[in-house]
């Protein structure tokens, strides 16, 4: 793997790591305009006590300090976790050009997982949202975070919740991206992986639910 998108996602992951070290749910993002990172963001809900201080919003505020809102029309977002319904709506209202994300957000995702705020009929133009860039890294950060949270919890949890899982259920890329766009975006390798994992998914239909979700993303 090594598209330009992966390069930007590395920067987003660095922000997610920073969030992790700050005791925030590890989600990070960068905004890219004309090939340059113009803003970074990390989750800030615990420090601020405000459930809406998601990584995306911190980056948006940074940009608006020095740019008119119209810059978003030519700006892409790289975020480690699928934007939630709130962030997806915010990004659409800003007319963001495209969103690239790491793992899906099964509980709150607004770009295909729970709702399709990015592509439903609406007032502003829709935006494409592409999953799967350093997905496993994004998931592992979240798992490590919750493991640590469980260990801190006053009431002991079951043993199962204290183990760090390292397996990944396959990503249903077709749920988010039109098939014709996959190879161009992700490269041949990713397409082959997708075909393989789709077959695996069919075989393991009853596989346990993935944990790509969290109350404060």
């Amino acid at each position, binding site marked *: 793997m090594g598209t330009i998108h992966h390069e930007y996602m590395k920067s987003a992951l660095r922000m997610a790591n920073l969030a992790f070290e700050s*005791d925030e749910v590890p989600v990070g993002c960068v905004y890219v305009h004309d090939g340059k990172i113009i803003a970074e963001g990390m989750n800030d*809900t*615990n420090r*601020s*006590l*405000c*459930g*809406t*201080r998601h990584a995306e*919003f911190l980056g*948006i*505020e940074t940009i*608006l300090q020095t740019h*008119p*809102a119209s810059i978003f029309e030519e700006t892409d977002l790289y975020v480690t976790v699928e934007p*939630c*319904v*709130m*962030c*997806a*709506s*915010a990004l659409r*209202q*800003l007319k963001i050009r495209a969103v690239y994300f790491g793992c899906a957000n099964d*509980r*709150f995702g*607004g770009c295909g997982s*729970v*709702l399709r*705020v990015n592509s*439903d*009929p*609406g*007032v502003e133009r829709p935006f494409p949202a592409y999953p799967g860039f350093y997905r496993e890294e994004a998931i592992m950060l979240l798992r490590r975070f919750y493991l640590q949270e469980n260990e801190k919890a006053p009431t002991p949890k079951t043993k199962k919740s204290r183990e760090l899982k390292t397996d990944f259920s396959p990503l249903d890329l077709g749920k988010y991206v039109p098939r014709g766009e996959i190879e161009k975006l992700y490269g041949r390798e990713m397409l082959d992986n997708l075909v393989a994992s789709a077959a695996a998914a069919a075989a393991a239909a*009853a596989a*346990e639910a993935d944990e790509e979700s969290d*109350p*404060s993303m």
Partner: protein
Amino acid sequence: MPPSVGSSRTTTVSTGTETYLHHKAPHNRLHRHHISLSSSIPVSANTTVARVSSVLASSKGHQQANSSARYFVQVKSPHERTELELVDVWATTIPARMATSVVSHLKQELPKDPHSLLHLRRLVKESDVEQQDSALRASDQVVLNLLICSIDAVPSEDEIKRMLLPMTELIVAKMNDNRLFVPVIRKAPKYPALTKQQSKEWSDGTWPIMWRGNPHAIISELPSDYEELYKKYIDTLLELTEKAHNEGEMPIATLIVDPATYEVVASAVDTRNSSNNPLAHSTMTCIAKVAEKELWRRQNETTAMQSTKEPPPQAYLCNNLQLITTHEPCAMCSMALVHSRISRLVYIKNMPRSGGIDRSSGPGYGIHWNRQLNWRFETWKWDGQNILLYDIDEATNA
């Protein structure tokens, strides 16, 4: 009857006050509220907004004649189910004293259930389901009905029997109830009920639902003292929108209130024009203000009192608070209310193209009552007449 803005307004407020006092308001609070409302509302002939209190005035007589007059209607979600749907489940009868071991044994044996049965009671006393055999009840051999799993999880009866087999060997000899550990098929409500009443109705003749006493469960009618209270808050909102309009902002305003103390915890108007931030919606700002206020309080309290008790790291600050706003929130703001765990939303006007709540707005998200999201809140919309909000473009995200 058209509202008469003038002397009737004063009458109204005091009438409202009496009702309100009678219900629950502490005298001093209410008095203050009453005074501030009366003194801060300028009654001018050219004002573009009609006061809600005057609406109240005009219809008070009517309301007395017909006490069921309501100003707010509940906004229900497209996801709300009103019909009972059933799912076939395996159940059996077990000795009460074996309940714990049977449940933990089955937990190891059973596959993941394709149906979430978490809303159903796992163990049910006989009398809850059907009349308990009197002889059995007289003896000390208490039995329980156990919900095993859905038929879809384990279609084979033999498989269920195999799972139960090790348990049957543990039955003490004197228990001769021939239903013990025999799997039977029962019908159970497929989805959680939305209200306590619905829970009761759905449980009748099926498998009982576990009602967890959700304080945010839908109620069918807004209590009348809340109606009075919200009308006063709406007056405040109308003042705020008027001010916003005069200052070149979008005339959209929001309050977050504490229903326990009647305190307005935060208020905000839309500032997208002056801030050059298209996301500076009044709901977002109001939520942020509540957090800032609490953050400030905690920081000052900690330094002043050297408090040793740390606040929980993830407190959901709007839990038990209510949000009153002029326009149906957009999807962003609606989801922000989910993230903030607001307990109730009250608004005046639908936003048919951009709203995130009403099933007829936008793509019909019904974010306040979406089964897949982890928080739900009641929503009430003004249904009374005569509140004239400033016109805003219907494509606006409020």
